[in-house]
């Protein structure tokens, strides 16, 4: 059911400039981070968040008063904000930090909270925060939850569907193991986006040109009374162990044969080579227990020898 006369809401979408998802990650020479001298772009989950905000507006005309993109990061983060504006956000806020500053999730949550509090009571008070469930660089996945806690707002994380109805009643669908979970809540709310919420649009050429004229407010952490001093120290960053071997099998029988050959089936407690084919899909293995699912297409399996 689509809402008829929705409440006019202001949406805040935090967007992070992160290493582009297509870049091959390399460990930095000091072993305490990764090489950041590579292509960056908007964190893909944040792209989904921007897209969702725009879709809420498009779904019901005049339902959304404003969409603000907020980024905390070095000077170059302005590119990320500009991308959000070119997708369809109305204005941006940039909280600047020096290059290579690590802003921890708790600091990010505090910064977003500060922006929201600054606007509280005004015409542009924030009703809904749509944000990525995680950033693909540090994979913390904690900012949304912390922010909700700090603000004492409701939260709906990992949304695969979002609807805001008249009066601010909001429903969120989440993908959980084995099915879907539907949550209902009241604005104000924090929603974090899962991969399947939508497919973000491209910033079209006319919109790129329009974005040039949209306003970006630049703030320093001090302007909001914030201190981004790090609380954690990274001791070391290392590559995962190299995968050995690997190959392609055509069907389950061949897979089973290969696994027996590699010795991964023998001695797996409780399984004893008893492979139970299941419905469709790929295959999954857990320590000591193995599930093989029937597959109609060739499947790729990697194993440690």
């Amino acid at each position, binding site marked *: 059911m689509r809402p008829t006369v929705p409440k006019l809401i202001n949406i805040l979408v935090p967007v992070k400039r992160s290493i582009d998802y*297509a870049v091959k990650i390399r460990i930095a020479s000091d072993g305490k981070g990764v090489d950041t001298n590579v292509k960056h772009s908007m964190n893909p989950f944040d792209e*989904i968040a921007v897209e969702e905000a725009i879709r809420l507006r498009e779904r019901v005309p005049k339902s959304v008063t404003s969409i603000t993109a907020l980024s905390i990061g070095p000077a170059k983060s302005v*590119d990320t904000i500009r991308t959000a504006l070119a997708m369809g956000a109305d204005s941006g806020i940039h909280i600047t930090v020096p290059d290579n500053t690590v802003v921890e999730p708790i600091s990010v949550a505090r910064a977003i909270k500060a922006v929201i509090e600054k606007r509280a009571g005004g015409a542009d008070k924030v009703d809904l925060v749509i944000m990525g469930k995680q950033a693909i660089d540090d994979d913390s996945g904690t900012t949304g939850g912390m922010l909700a806690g700090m603000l004492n707002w409701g939260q709906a994380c990992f949304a695969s569907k979002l609807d805001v109805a008249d009066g601010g009643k909001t429903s969120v669908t989440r993908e959980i193991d084995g099915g879907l979970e539907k949550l209902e809540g009241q604005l104000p709310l924090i929603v974090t986006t899962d991969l399947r919420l939508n497919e973000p649009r491209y910033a*079209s*050429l*006319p919109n*790129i040109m329009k974005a*040039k004229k949209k306003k970006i407010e630049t703030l320093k952490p001090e302007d909001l009374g914030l201190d981004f001093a790090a609380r954690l120290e990274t001791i070391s960053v290392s590559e995962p162990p190299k995968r050995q071997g690997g190959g392609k099998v055509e069907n389950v029988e061949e897979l089973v044969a290969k696994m027996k050959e590699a010795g991964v089936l023998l001695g797996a407690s409780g399984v004893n080579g008893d492979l139970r084919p299941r419905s469709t899909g790929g295959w999954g293995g857990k320590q000591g227990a193995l599930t093989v699912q029937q597959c109609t297409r060739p499947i790729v399996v990697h194993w440690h020898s």
Partner: protein
Amino acid sequence: MLSKLLRPARSLPSRAIYARSFSTSPIARGVQEITRPAIDTPLSLWNFTEEENMIRETVAKFAQDVIAPRMRDMDEREEMDPEIIKGLFDNGFMGIETPTELDGAGCSFTSAIIAVEELAKVDASVAVLCDVHNTLVNTVLRLYGSEAIQQKWLPGLATNTVGSFCLSEPNAGSDAFGLQTTAKKDSDGGYILNGSKSWISNSAEADTFLVFANVDPSKGYKGITCFVMSKDMGVQIAKREKKLGIRSSSTCVLSFDDVKIPKENIVGEIGKGYKIAIEILNEGRIGIAAQMVGIAQGAFDHAVTYAYQRKQFGKYIGDFQKMGHDFAEAAIKIEAARLLTYNAARLKEEGRPFTQEAAMAKWYASTIAGEVTGAAIEWAGGVGFTRDLPLEKYWRDSKIGAIYEGTSNIQLETIAKLLRKQYIS
């Protein structure tokens, strides 16, 4: 979306603000001599406006997500997927320089060049569709069309109607102004078109056609006039060519039998069609140069990535010194072609002479596109020769660069003539 997350890396130029100032006082000697103004802070050619960088990014993304999965199949079927054409329109790639008031994007010429380059990295057929539509069809109407013509035709061309540029004929290729299509004055003041056109890009998908015809063959090329028309006025597709490369881009023979055209459809002045064609092809060549740069870079990216995955004699084939040096030489050629192309584009944008630079860019870029794509096949060995990798396609596609919008000989001819003017006393 997941597949998007797994895309291979692309390198993009660093972002910087493009700002130029230059003196306009010409250096006396030579018609084509480019003034070389002194400026306080000269910038490299790797400088783009923020919008240009975003355009590059958005086109590259579109090419990876939407075109890459389809390009192989389109090449085999020799057909353009309508979804791609729709995507080009929806994202504003078909009205790049068209003013926003006429539903275009209102971007710079260099933006169009960047878009063509990025599309060609993935599929040269889509690139030429976009290139011809923007740099020839839209630009002719924008620069030479009356207010009424612009209002009538440009919004459609920016949002849903593909355009074709119809100059060449069976007996008029390099010698384009020997064209034989006639436009005879009708009793009601309009014109009646008769003749045929050859090798017309986009014509299977197009609905808007710019047609060059002679209103008075006794005047020779000074009778050539440009007309704009829609398909339903009587454009017939006589034959669709089967080609070596850019196979999903349609190339057809068109015929016109007593096609009535109202006089309002004349673009520019009667008898000035030759001028329009010369001027438009001058800048169009920069687009073809960009297409060739994209082809070379696309093949290079695929082949070099492969070379660092394939092992022989216990090491990556890319790690053999001769291979590394091959890559280096190819990279130099691509960089040189790209800089010639960007420089010609900026000269054009700055309103300075660029004919010679555009001809140089097109000649050089199409030459090295052939070399680099050919080498790329060899770098990948047997796999490079098969259709498992797109390298053979890049190589086939590269060949067209030396033929359309003036063959390589014609580019050399243009450059040589300008040099002669400069040196003859």
